């Protein structure tokens, strides 16, 4: 599935890409499937197990898509964080 990018540089990961937009679509669907699937599975409805299973599969797919990008964002951002925090402290203390 080369359509989904799995190796990110820090600069590339900073941008909003199709991996993010796909996650925006899949994520609410996972919540819906987990919610309805759990309730109907507890009532031992066969379609409840199907929905719950679908939710789990979509969750794994979502993580597969977005996790490499989130890792890249986090790693590059940690380097800049200290400098940003100093900026914010200056604003809070009216130093500029």
């Amino acid at each position, binding site marked *: 599935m080369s359509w989904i990018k799995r190796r990110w540089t820090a*600069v590339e990961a*900073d*941008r*909003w890409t199709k991996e*993010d937009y796909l*996650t*925006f679509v899949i*994520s*609410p669907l*996972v*919540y*819906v499937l*987990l*919610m*309805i699937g*759990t*309730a*109907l599975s*507890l*009532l*031992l*409805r066969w379609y409840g197990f199907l929905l719950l299973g679908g939710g789990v599969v979509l969750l794994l797919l979502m993580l597969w898509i*977005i*996790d490499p990008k*989130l*890792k890249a*964002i*986090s790693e590059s*951002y*940690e380097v800049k*964080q200290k400098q*940003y*925090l100093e*900026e*914010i402290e200056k*604003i*809070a*203390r*009216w*130093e500029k």
Partner: protein
Amino acid sequence: MVHFAFLDWFWVIAFIILMTVCGILFYKLGKRSMADFFLAGRGLPWWLPATSVYATHTATDTPIWVSGVVYQYGLRGLWYTFFSAWCAISAFASTRIFRRSLAYTQAEWQTLRFSGLGAELLRGWIAGWQVFMNMFVLGWVGMAMGKLCNYLFGWPQWVALVLFSTICAVYVLAAGYWGVVMSDFQQGVIAFLVIVIVSFWGISVAGGPHGIVSKLGAMGQSWRLNPFAFSGLTGGDFPLVWFLTMLVIAVIGGFGMGTSIDWYPEAQRIQSAKTVRDASYSIWSGTALIVIRNSIWAVAILGFFVLYPNIQETAQYEMAWYRIGFEYLPVGMVGLFFAAIVAIHLSTISAHLNLGASYATRDLYHHYFKPKATEKELVWVGRVSTLILLIGSFIYGSMMKEITQWLIFALWIMAAGIWLPSILQVVWWRFNSWGYLSSWIANLGLSWLVVWVLPEFRLIPDLPDYLQFWIMMVLGALIYLPITFLTKPEDMDRLVKYYVMSRPLGWWKPVRLEAERRGLVVPEAGAAKGGN
């Protein structure tokens, strides 16, 4: 009244000691700095804020609310709880943007995103409003516990309000957010386990899954098993347009900051996570637990309906889940159940005590009164603010009957008219502080008119809530959009700085091009073709 045996009291006292000591143990970490007292030093792995999200949003009044909607609407009632799904998109959109801003609070974020007088007015307003709201939530939830203990033990309502909030304040005062989040972890685990045990017990008492389904069928109530049993397009008690409106509010709201009242506690958890990735996963998984919890509750409430199908009074059937626990669990287990209720209660109280204090300390005292305050002084101001919130919550709690109607109205204002502006401030560079401020003010007037005044004078009919939402959204936009365009855009220096820090989503092209021109951002390949 419920009778407690020795073993029941043992569970309750043991859990209270465990929860309090667990919080106090982190005293030394909490007192190191303001960042530790309110954000645990921004160093938490995702699963700690995640359990805190779950525990905070599992309060004593939550099963009452879920019981009410599921008893009334069957599994359709789950959609009334689905507003928490704003985290589905937020976890990967506004959470990422907010975590990168490094703002302590949402009020502080306003001064990073906007500039000048408008930004300061917004920061002051949101900080003051959040101090008030947290005090209100503390009083509200405290009184829910008061009513429960009155039902269980016959105590006057103020006793449980004061007793449990004071116990909770001990570890919040000592260890701040470290105490909150560490206690939330064990409280969340206890609460989830007991919710599963009690709900499964209720399902079993009602005849098990097959028994519930067959009894509902025999009663002609099988529609209760269908989460999509709409009553029509616009009419009836569960119209399709309500469902679609709810989905829009819940799901699209995730692009904004402040589209849900729950954003504010979540914002604190987002900033306490050690990386952007941890922040995203904490919000997503904490809410996933909430969604699953609601489903477990819902099936137990269907079981309760099978046992007691003809309850008409809302106040009676809203107690469904509590009745399952207290009426059907064996002696010894009832105490465990009550200990879990105390855990649920303390996690909510501790979160709001610390959150309200963070706005009072960071945004009001530190930013406006004493910008040069030392870290030690700020931690102490945090403690004093916590104490003031605690005392304030007792006063609110005692006034709750009189003010509840007004404050529910205030919450409705929040949800309806600020929803779109709260998204626009995140996704659109041209939306400025005056536009956002005017949306708050306009909504205050419009909600009075649309919800109360015009229907009262028969100038318009009583409108269903989904229609009120859309009308207020459109009317509000007719005010704040012209104001936005008639006032200047935010200062470009501030916008560029914000863009470089946060990398927001949406329509930011002029700011991005300026950041690229200044050499602060690597130019996008093919930027000339357009894009955001």
